[in-house]
């Protein structure tokens, strides 16, 4: 699923490791999320949305 995670992360100057730490997942998982190779579970999607203070659908594009 296409998403704006790389942009949101870059805006805050975070590395993938920083984001992984904040989301309590591995860096590999953040990498897979950003590349659209892995779709997060609903709890993780909510966690991401809360962290970036956005709604899930503005971060993840379900049409891709």
């Amino acid at each position, binding site marked *: 699923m296409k998403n704006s995670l790389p942009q949101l992360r870059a805006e805050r100057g975070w590395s993938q490791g920083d984001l992984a730490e904040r989301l309590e997942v*591995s860096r590999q998982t953040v990498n897979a999320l950003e590349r659209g190779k892995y779709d997060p579970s609903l709890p993780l999607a909510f966690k991401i949305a809360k962290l970036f203070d956005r709604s899930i659908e503005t971060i993840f594009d379900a049409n891709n």
Partner: protein
Amino acid sequence: MSQSGSSQTEARVAGSALYGTYVVSLAVSMFGNLLIRIGAEAGFLSPWGMALVGVAASIPLVVAAVMFWRLLRRDLDEMLQRIVLEGFAFALIVYIPLTALYVNLRTAGVWVPRLDPPDLLMGPALLVAIGVALAHRRYQ
């Protein structure tokens, strides 16, 4: 999901320890099997002794299984859990038809390599490793 940063390193260390424990456990189990077979042929082990060696040699694998369960439930995040579980699913899906094929060919009298218990133990372990590697590649 429950890991990152230092806990990610901890998970990696736990994974390495688990792999080491599993390899050693498998070696102990295979050694036990060898001991039982030699004992049966040479006659230096009673039936009870052989049974005792059989049980004792399997205990390290039980420890490895408990460690694996803890790693899976506690130390891996959702994607890594998925990769491991897909690896196991792959192993099961491939192992069952392969085993059925082997048994059928053997029953039909077709020459197939003789599989000893150590081979039977290694087969699923190898398939899980292949399955995890394939799943890992899919998410990279």
